[in-house]
């Protein structure tokens, strides 16, 4: 029972395998440099793609927003993997769960608010009609 004691303070008791954001596994410097450069490359390519999609006429006009959303989601994925080092490994369960919880909260708040506010306007008398009544 006591081998764990000092460690408990620093790394948390159970699930030593688990690591916190920022406290990365030991790898050579080269590994990280390559990792970040690769991430930067993907991020830049995706950014250029979105600008390209918006300005060129290669894509059918109504589909442009969809394309941009797709690029944006891919961009988020790149950031998560290369910069925030979220992986699917067992040492990352807590990080993934925290991310999922955050996404859930933001999703509830945003969709809820949009829905509510949309309906409020929906049920308000249109301005011109109101004007008419005041006349």
């Amino acid at each position, binding site marked *: *029972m*006591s081998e*764990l*004691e*000092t460690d*408990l*303070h620093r*790394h*948390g*008791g*159970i*699930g030593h395998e*688990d690591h916190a954001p920022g406290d990365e596994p030991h790898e050579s410097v080269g590994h990280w440099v390559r990792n970040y450069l690769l991430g930067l490359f993907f991020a830049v390519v995706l950014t250029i793609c979105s600008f390209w999609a918006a300005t060129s006429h290669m894509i059918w006009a109504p589909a442009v927003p969809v394309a941009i959303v797709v690029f944006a989601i891919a961009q988020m994925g790149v950031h998560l993997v290369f910069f925030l080092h979220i992986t699917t490994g067992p040492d990352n369960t*807590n990080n993934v769960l925290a991310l999922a*919880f*955050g996404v*859930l*909260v933001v999703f*509830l*708040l945003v969709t*809820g*608010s949009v*829905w*509510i*506010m949309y*309906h*409020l306007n*929906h*049920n*308000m008398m249109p301005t011109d009609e109101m004007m008419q009544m005041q006349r």
Partner: protein
Amino acid sequence: MFGKLDWSAIPFNQPIPLITSVILILGILGVLGLITVKKWWGYLWREWITSVDHKRIGVMYMLLGVVMLIRGFADAIMMRTQQAVAIHSAGYLEPEHYNQIFSAHGTIMILFGAMPLVIGLMNFVAPLQLGVRDVAFPTFNSVGFWLTASGALLVNISLFVGEFSRVGWLPYAPLSETTYSPGVGVDYYLWAVQISGVGTLITGINMVTTVLKMRCPGMTYLRMPVFCWTTLASSLLIVAVFPILTATLAMLTLDRYFGFHFFTNDAGGSPMMFMNLIWAWGHPEVYILVLPAFGVFSEIFSTFSGKPLFGYRSMVAATLFICVVSMMVWLHHFFTMGAGAAVNTFFGISSSVIAVGTGVKIYNWIFTMYGGRVRFETPMLWSMGFIFTFIIGGLTGVLLAVPPADFLTHNSMFLVAHFHNVIVGGVVFAVFAAVEYWFPKAFGFRLHAGWGKAAFWFAFIGFWVTFTPLYILGLQGMTRRLQHIDVEAWRPMLQLSVVGVAILIVGVICQVIQLVVSILQRDKLRDETGDPWDGRSLEWATPSPAPFFNFAVMPNVEGEEAYWGIKQRAIDTQQLAPEPDYRPVEMPLNSPVGIYTAFFSTVTGFALIWHIWWLAGLGLFAAFIGFVVFAWRDVHEFEVPVEELIRVERGRRAARDAFLERIRQGEGAPS
């Protein structure tokens, strides 16, 4: 030089605030003088103010909460008496003053009374139950506490310097915009809540990390006591929704200070968006308060029934269910704002669905008592009173969650009765039960049982005599927040409610007497064994009062109800577990960074309220310096020598040996 601040800010011509604040200031000076004369400053500074011990911080949180509870209760007495006399007359409070009182009452009770009490409990109890020596971020914890205290201080300064908000405990826009509230009242509210909100967020992060990462060996998730689960759920909610509050109030601040138009009527602002955002925080907030209360009752029901908690896993599931669903119901606070049938129906149903999770819990508590050997000690009385009270409160909540019914009862006294029913019956009863229950762990002696029971009965009866009339008034059509009243028919119920308040006052007096009597008789009430209630979780495995390192050796958990298992094994084999091998432990050093930061936050907040820009800049800069100095410190832990651990642990073992001896002689477990 001093922004908007000048002598007209002091209420010389208003006798009530003036006299109150003079008495308060004299009282505070008296206490400070006493501390100086008795030379207690050194002790207070070393052992409490700079302490990073989660138990000490927990106790200070509770102290802050109790003081604010008394302040809020004074407001409540004024409101109830004003309404009882102001029928066809002006009463004794001016309208403007009355508005400040109900605003201060709500703000103080929820944010500076109930929140510190609940957070104090989580701080004190959770690490002990998890079998660890500290929270994840001890110094951060101290910062969180002092920031909360800083917010509370600002609210109370408003009594004497300037005015407090008049727009209710949630500053609904556009009423809270400068057009309609040009004074400093809303600014006091904004900065007080922002500063304490940061403190609360800190606690949330700290407790989530503590529960997830700091458990003693063997304490798997499904072996944690339910209180730890509710601490986790409540802290998750804090982390999820307090940022919404901060952002919303920041937008209102931008409106007020820089002429933005987030929530104004004109220039594209949307007051309805304020409603939406504030309740997206506001509803989860009430569950932040009540979930830990559910945890407290779970511990108490199983301890005093002498049985494991019925349906432990369903309890955990219900907790997590409530945690998620409570983020999906906020619209029930503004059904009447104009949303369509689809929206109202969705949120009406989701609100009622929460009652399912709560119902599961209530049945579990009842089944825990069923077939158990129930001991009617004071904590148990509060818990049984809670079941009765909370069921009624929950049912009226479900009624309010039916949109057509809510169109009739919204903003009526019925609503006021509903939320007092759940908050007093749920949260406040839980806090009183918890104080009775864990007091010996904090101070080494129990509270006097007789006075405790008297306090319960007065509070319980007083509560119902105060709030049943409010339900009736609401159904008769009385709206909330009336400064004076023109309907003769409401007189009897309003007066009956004052009778209830008088009974509640007797209850409060009983609590005070209980404390005094218990301190005087502390030798008789001493808890020798560290396990005064025949408990089942790990906090009872350490002496009372708990040593600052909590456990001399870290417990090793082998099943649910960790301590019960250890205890039964000792009783069966008639001996304690063999003496472990002791190792020195490292504990965090005290740090003044908490009170330092909070001091300058108070200064900054005060300066911002009164538009004293240079002082605000200075305060921020000083706080930053504190942060830098703290970040560069070298030593942050010290080693507790093995001898100290052995001394404490041998003392405990001797007491437990004596306990086994008593059992051998057939005396049974001490009560």
